[in-house]
């Protein structure tokens, strides 16, 4: 005990070096570029900053960007969980193909995804031509934004849930079953608590990706002011006017909001993991 306190060394060597490297690396790759946006924004007065980020159009775009990303992440959490479940639990022909399909949204250039989705969902597209007569407009509406974000966010949920689900011991479920649990009880009380932290991570990743997404959304959104403009588009709009400070002001708000949301999600995950631990 006293030995450990004196030395404060972990069993694993190289902590100092590794931490130093981590901090340096994170600074170079993440912190320095991000702090540049704060520095640029600092050239504005507080009032100008506030006027920029609370302009009705900017507010509408925040609402759309965060709202659509949230809805898309929810959809992905639900269906991604099912996809992961199917891929882990069942054996069937073509499983490898479906497994590979999941990664496609990762690999596809986002602009290509956007163009393809627009082609499918526009009023003359394969799916759009059947939806539109029924009053469902997807392309060039906020709904289209949700569709695009759902598309690009899917792999995040599947790929985080899949390994956890695969590692889950079947014996636990069998034990639960032997003790008289129904299938529903097994899912809700045994499987879900174990998977929940991973599911929340997947949700957070999908959400974070959606908030910042530009390439795939820009083609399907229609970019109508007040209706379907995403926040990154407004950043571009400001840049087109050579309003660098205004552009970074919006970026700063997005950064801070995203950071707070991710922090909240991390706390939620920590809570879920503890609860999951207790349940075992």
């Amino acid at each position: 005990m006293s030995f450990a306190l004196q030395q404060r060394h972990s069993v694993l060597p190289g902590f100092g070096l590794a931490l130093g490297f981590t901090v340096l690396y994170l600074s170079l790759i993440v912190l320095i570029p991000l702090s540049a946006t704060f520095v640029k924004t600092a050239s504005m007065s507080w009032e100008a900053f506030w006027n920029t980020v609370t302009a009705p159009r900017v507010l509408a775009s925040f609402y759309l960007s965060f709202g659509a990303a949230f809805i898309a992440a929810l959809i992905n959490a639900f269906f991604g969980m099912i996809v992961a479940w199917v891929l882990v639990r069942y054996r069937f022909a073509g499983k490898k193909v479906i497994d590979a399909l999941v990664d496609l949204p990762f690999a596809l250039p986002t602009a290509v995804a956007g163009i393809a989705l627009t082609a499918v969902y526009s009023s003359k597209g394969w799916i759009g031509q059947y939806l539109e007569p029924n009053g469902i407009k997807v392309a060039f509406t906020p709904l289209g934004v949700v569709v695009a974000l759902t598309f690009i966010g899917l792999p995040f949920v599947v790929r985080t849930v899949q390994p956890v689900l695969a590692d889950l011991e079947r014996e636990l479920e069998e034990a639960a079953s032997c003790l008289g649990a129904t299938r529903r009880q097994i899912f809700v009380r045994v499987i879900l608590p174990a998977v929940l932290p991973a599911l929340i991570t997947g949700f957070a990743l999908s959400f974070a990706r959606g908030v910042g997404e530009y390439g795939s959304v820009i083609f399907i959104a229609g970019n109508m002011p007040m209706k379907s403009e995403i926040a990154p588009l407004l950043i571009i709009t400001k840049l087109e006017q050579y309003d660098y400070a205004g552009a970074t002001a919006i970026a700063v708000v997005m950064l801070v909001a995203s950071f707070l949301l991710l922090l909240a999600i991390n706390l939620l995950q920590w809570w879920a993991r503890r609860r999951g631990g207790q349940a075992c």
Partner: protein
Amino acid sequence: MRSKYHAWIGALALVAATAAQADTTLLNVSYDPTRELYADFNAAFAKQWKAKTGETVSIRQSHGGSGKQGRSVIDGLEADVVTLALAYDVDALAANANLIPRDWQKRLGHNSSPYTSTIVFLVRKGNPKGVRDWGDLVKPGVAVITPNPKTSGGARWNYLAAWGYALKKSGNDETKAQDFVGKLYANVPVLDSGARGALITFTERGIGDVFISWENEAFLAVKELGPDKFDIVVPSISILAEPPVTVVDKVVDKRGTRKVAEAYLQYLYSDEGQEIAGKHYYRPRDAKAAAKYAKTFTKVNLFTIDEAFGGWQKAQKTHFADGGVFDKIYQPKK
């Protein structure tokens, strides 16, 4: 032994290649639809430069949205010359980074725009909605495709052309002009962020009845996508679109390429340069080349941005800056 021999040949080839390589390279930072134009022009200029001076010059091209290209140069892309879609983006090089003097546009003839274009309509074959002029674009049931002028520099010309038409029609009544442009944009179902995206919306997605376009791009679209699918309609009045060119002083002085860069731009004004511009559907400034391509380009009553709006800086501030007229069009009516 044999491999040594090969290595020697390789080394010799390398030396030969280096010798044959250009003495000078220029980087021309341009906007999107000038790709083919400059591919042709660069070859012509390199040949002429070689014949005249014996030096080899090779020109690299960079294409993209005009505003984005301007920002790249401001942020340090070493462009010897820029050939952009609107003077506003070139002004930014002077205003934001002091790369060129503020009066850059006076340095070359014709407002530093060796070729021009104008704004026309692309309609579906046979013109089913009977679109003849700007007035037809505000009719109910006519869907108009044009990019967002706040993100697309090229599309600012579209907006200004419509505004100019409305001003002329109403005897310079700004309120009526705003009303007209407001109605026009109410007929726009999608505001793509750039001209290429908007063109895809119109041609590939089949959305909209009219696509407001630069004349040279309309010609290109008809040529690429089939004359059996689209017609070009030229309105009664339109704007003279002047895509300007300039040498980037800071860069050419640093790289020592001023002489060749200036000659490069001058050559755009030569007979051959004008001829190439005409061939790629830009309206030549030179009377001789213009006469040759008179059949291609319909005569239009053209006004300039300086006449109608008092120049780019003013037009940008009034119409496209945040809180400007374009934003007002989209503000929810109280």
